[in-house]
């Protein structure tokens, strides 16, 4: 369990959590850190740092794109850990690493988790590591005080939701719709019912993500969810910007709107 996450959750009161996602190394290493700092200035409660992978199965076009650019910029797990320790100089919000299994296998699970904890990371989200395969990962992460956050989906039955709740530390990540990141689908009654059901079943707080693209959708989700994760939308804003300054201001402006709305 991460103290930073526990403290943040304890202090939040009735405030809904704003959790932006950035791919480390996109558009460049340095700029990705600038974006994180700007997001924290706008009131982000935690930040997810994407660790790029060549074959991101759970990601839609925007995060696929940012991952490819990041890899072209020679982003590795080592650079992700450097990003964490650089950010830790000035930032105190929890930093959650999000990425796929294979780079961690290549680095060595044990060494990576030890190095991540040393760098100042607080937790991990691995979309292609469901609870069934996570036994050793979880116990090593626990031993380093790193939180493991698992995903629940609209297709998870009650028994699995309870299992995921039990293995997640501090909070759970709810995938809003069946699909990949950045689906852009409208959330309807079905999503409301699902999020309401989660609220009743989960013992821990949860954040909702995948396809949160406007203040309206963020508001709708946070009627039940304890917070929202925003990723693809931010990558899209960065892609559209003509300069790095414009990228930072667009991202900051968007997060400000969400912060006010939720």
């Amino acid at each position, binding site marked *: 369990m991460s103290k930073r996450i526990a403290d943040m959750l304890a202090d939040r009161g009735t405030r809904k959590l704003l959790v932006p996602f950035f791919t480390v190394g996109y558009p460049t290493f340095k700029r990705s850190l600038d974006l994180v700092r700007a997001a924290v200035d706008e009131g982000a409660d935690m930040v997810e740092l994407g660790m790029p992978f060549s*074959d991101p*199965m759970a990601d839609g076009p925007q995060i696929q794109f940012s991952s490819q650019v990041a890899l072209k910029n020679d982003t590795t797990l080592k650079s992700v850990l450097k990003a964490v320790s650089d950010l830790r100089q000035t930032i105190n919000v929890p930093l959650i690493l999000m990425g796929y299994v294979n*780079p961690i296998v290549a680095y060595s699970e044990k060494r990576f988790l030890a190095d991540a904890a040393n760098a100042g990371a607080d937790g991990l989200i691995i979309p*292609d*590591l*469901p609870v069934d395969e996570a036994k050793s990962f979880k116990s090593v992460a626990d031993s380093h005080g790193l939180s493991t956050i698992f995903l629940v*989906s609209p*297709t998870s039955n009650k028994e699995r939701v309870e299992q995921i709740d039990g293995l997640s530390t501090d909070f759970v990540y709810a*995938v809003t719709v069946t699909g*990949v990141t950045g689906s852009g689908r409208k959330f309807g009654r079905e999503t409301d019912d699902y999020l309401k059901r989660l609220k009743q079943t989960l013992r821990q707080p949860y954040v909702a993500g995948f396809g949160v693209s406007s203040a309206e959708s963020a508001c709708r989700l946070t009627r039940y969810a304890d917070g929202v994760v925003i990723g693809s939308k931010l990558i899209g804003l960065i892609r559209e910007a003509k300069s790095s300054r414009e990228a930072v201001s667009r991202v900051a402006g968007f997060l400000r709107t969400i912060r006010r709305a939720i």
Partner: protein
Amino acid sequence: MAGESKRMPDKKGRFGPYGGRYVPETVIYALDELERCYRQFKKDRRFRSELKGLLADFVGRPTPLYYAERLTAFLKGPEIYFKREDLNHTGAHKINNTVGQILLAQRMGKKRIIAETGAGQHGLATATVCARFGMSCIVYMGTEDMKRQKPNVEKMRLLGAKVVPVTSGSATLKDATSEALRDWVTNVRSTFYVLGSVVGPHPYPMIVRDFQTIIGRETRRQSLRLFKTPPDAIIACVGGGSNALGIFADFLKDDQVKLIGVEAAGYGLTSGQHAAPLAKGKPGVLHGAFSYLIYDDDGQVILPHSISAGLDYPGVGPEHSLLKDSGRVTYGTVTDAEALRAFEQVSRLEGIIPALETSHALAWLMKHKRKFKKNEKIVVCLSGRGDKDMPIVASAGMLDE
């Protein structure tokens, strides 16, 4: 249906340390549902008899075990036999599996079918059974493969399938598979994913192997009739590895039968441009399973290369990984150039145009004929026919006068 390899995988979908289910939570329930239905129907008499009927009358089984007389004379080595999977409907072993999976899809009430394809043989076999059963079919195919396997793209479209071009990554089988998985994660409730090889998350490696095991069961029966014994060796090409496991599975317990899998060495194993994870890779995770994989020091998957679109894949089925480690199967490699040479020689000597994939198995045998005694009986799994490869061999200059 599972035959003799029923013991594997274990309950968690593991072949020793390999296999498992490294997939997003959203599709876990669908994998559970698929496994439940498969275990139920494989024992169901009506399911089995329907499958048997389709394999006989729609696919054209049993396929012959054919004595390759002129190739044998030419090599002056062991006696060579071809297990003629090229004579199946649609021209490859792939349809053994798609017929089985479409019957499962039908019983599970799923009407929308998706598939990935490399060489187009699995896409074609899926489009074919979808036409036969009146289901809508979407095939993901890399744009690079669409170019080099154009005849199959046209056939799939004729059969009513929608072929979706995939441009990401290397625009080949790896990327088509990722895109099919993304579709499945999105449309999981309505959609059945017909996976084409012994790869992916559990239960796919088991299901595909079991549906392909008919190749080995027939080979055993035919060998006993022809030679009074099982063959001395069996050789098959390995991309994901479904034709190889299909013909090996029934012989795994016969220790005297040598089993040889042949991977694609592309431009050569030291060139860095190959598709030989068992020879040159390390265990890792791609497309839902832990298995041998080619990736760099940072864990990023290396773009594979093979002249054969069906072998152009950075991973391999998890059961092959175990069979490599246990030593029960010997794995070798063959380069693009060697495969092309075998393609031409076998065409001219036997009047059979083998697929470029299959040509890797043939080339290995031609290269290593001295490993075998003269009277030994060698079966090559002739996994598919090569007309689909005409654009590739033409651009390699083979057809110039």
